[in-house]
């Protein structure tokens, strides 16, 4: 059991003690737990956003300006955790990776020294990447319309990838069988590539 710092009774999983209502320190929880959601890929983002706002209104440090230093620190921790979880759940890619990780799949985490080359892509996809690269150079020489056309072509392929991911996660959501996620794993690597490619086409530094 986790005891409340204030009343020393069982605090429960919520940010506020279930016994006395005092704000608790942030405990490590995954993004779904932060929002009291069971892990799902298919999320209603409007509902998620509403939930984020409602939670912000209760947890934000601005709501604790007159409280003690301890509560202010907890408010900072809780809101930081909340914002992080929201950012993660908002992105289909991050959401999918989180589900894969908690189902025993390995997904690459952010590491220094990544050059895009360490990614484990299927071999035929690697060739697709090379073709795109050359096409991008040609399109750049040709002009903005050509670049735009290439970008929308890549976006179409990205949508196809998203559809496969979508199906795999739908299967998993129905069956609860982690093996159903198998087909999604290589597609996620493609999705990361598409995101970087589109960023580059649009002149945004990838991060």
């Amino acid at each position, binding site marked *: 059991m986790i005891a409340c710092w204030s009343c020393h009774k069982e605090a429960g999983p919520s940010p506020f003690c279930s016994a006395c209502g005092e704000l608790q320190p942030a405990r490590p929880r995954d993004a779904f737990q932060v929002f009291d959601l069971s892990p799902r890929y298919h999320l209603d983002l409007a509902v998620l956003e509403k939930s984020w706002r409602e939670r912000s209104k209760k947890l*934000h440090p601005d709501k604790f300006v007159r409280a003690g230093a301890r509560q202010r620190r907890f408010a*900072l921790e809780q809101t930081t955790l909340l*914002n992080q979880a929201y950012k993660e759940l908002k992105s289909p890619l991050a959401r999918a990776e989180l589900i894969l990780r908690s189902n025993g799949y390995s997904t690459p985490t*952010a*590491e*220094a*020294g990544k050059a895009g080359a360490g990614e484990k892509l299927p071999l035929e996809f690697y060739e697709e990447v090379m073709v795109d690269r050359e096409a991008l150079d040609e399109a750049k020489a040709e002009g903005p319309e050509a670049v735009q056309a290439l970008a929308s072509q890549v976006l179409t392929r990205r949508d196809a990838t998203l559809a496969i991911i979508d199906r795999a996660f739908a299967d998993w959501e129905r069956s609860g069988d982690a093996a159903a996620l198998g087909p999604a794993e290589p597609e996620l690597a493609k999705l990361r590539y598409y995101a970087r490619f589109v960023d580059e086409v649009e*002149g*945004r*530094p990838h991060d």
Partner: protein
Amino acid sequence: MGDSGKAVGIDLGTTNSLVAYVEGKGAKVRCLVVDEGSTLLPSAVAYVDGQVVVGRQARRLAAEHPREVILSAKRFMGKSADDVEVRRLSPYTFAAESGPVIRFALGEKSVTPVEVSAEVLRRLRAEAQARLGEVTKAVITVPAYFDDAQRQATKDAGKLAGLEVLRLLNEPTAAAIAYGLDKKKDGTFAVYDLGGGTFDISILKLEDGVFEVKATGGDSALGGDDFDRALAQHFLAQLGADRAEPKIVRAAIDAAKAAKERLTAERQIEVELGGAKIAVAREDLESVIKPILERTGPACRRALADADAGPLDGVILVGGQTRTPLVRRYVGELFRLPPLADIDPDEVVALGAAIQANQLAGEEKAHDDILLLDVIPLSLGVETMGGLVEKILPRNSTIPVAMQQRFTTYVDGQTALDVHVVQGEREFVQDCRSLARFTLRGIPPLPAGLARIGITFQVDADGLLTVSAREERTGVAQTVQVKPSHGLTDEEVERMLLESYQHGEEDIASRLLMESRVEAQRILAAADKQIDSNGDLLTGEERTEIESAMRALVEAAQGNDHRLVNERIAELDRASAEFAERIMDRGIQRAIGGRSIDEVSESGPG
């Protein structure tokens, strides 16, 4: 609280300042008349003949006493003598013994920008007290880009004027509050604020009582004054006065300003200048100011892209310059929406501040459920190999926020890691602002790439940054606190954003090449060393294959094609994948000594 003093909202502007108040149960909010029948008090303060005069009267003294009449103290708030703004051409003389805070020299005495601003606030407070009784509290608005020093200076000015500053509110947020609550309407709004000397754009989302700043941007050296100067130039050209005297230039600028204002309602007017009459049509004004106006476009598009908030529900106009019909048309076309202008664009910020003041002072409980969520204006990152920046927190992240990134060592046996924290959008360290440096020591000596170092950035609700680094195997940790905004001027913020925009493509290409070369070097060095020390793990055939992949990579890294380099890196990776795994196993075995594999298995290969 026995304190009966009233709370007001104050827009402390560069050119004009206003005070507003929420009155009665109906929560009617309005600006008070403060200067010669107007709600606008020119932010001008004259120190003439031992007297202090504020407002229009002070402005009229400016021509005769250029040094003793301070017209735009706001530009100097929180600045030191080294700041660009201070060195820019201006009629003021600064006291020599300035120290960290600049002082305007006024003959035998000198005043700080804080004191000048306090005079403006004192006058607003006095005018409000004449109508409302005792006024002791205020919400004062500041530009979204104001840094810590500027915000602190504004707070000090309030204190000097006898006001308890309940909160400093960002100007665009104040404008959105004025519209949001007046209409009780949720949605995503752009706030387009074109003042006399500055331009700001913000994208805000209002829903369920939460005001979320999605993105901000702007240009602190672009405004209506530029319109006036351009139109004045047009007049002077018509007069054939190519090398005009300062007096005529001054007269031309005044005439231009008046003409611009008249052309809001009229289509064709006549201007008198230097004894000559010049006919001006609205079209003339528009063709002169259009190129200046169009400079606001890129910042708007970037803010919209950053906000990624879907279609806009409205565009709010703020600042007197948005009265100009061309500005309204341009904004309408830019955002594909007719802009909202039903609240006076000069008053809207003060009105929003008054609503916030009313809530914070607890005089009206109706809207106390409001929360403002702010963002960081510039990305935060650390320096990595080759002088590159690894962004850890992207700009416009909602605060408070934290993010962790994993790093590793590049050299065998490396026991210390330098952490250099930077702020900005560019790809190279030298183009970003350096915030802090520290060294994480006590990393256990391991083969290169095996140490796991987590660097965490935490920005709290006030925008203060804490950076900590931790080696995960040993728990060795180091923490440093930095102020991301400290001393960073609006100009610096904008210059950095602008440059990232202009150099984006060129940066990416050279970044990609640099990255791929660094990676190539790292991999080649590692491969070399591993063949030396772990060559016994390879068959002769495997060894030949790896060595030919290495030669191909060396060749590619000498060229300028990052894709070829990456391709060859991937080939070398493939050729040596099996080898790397065998080495990793051996390395871990050695590094952990007597510990069991299970203890570290969760960290896997780095």
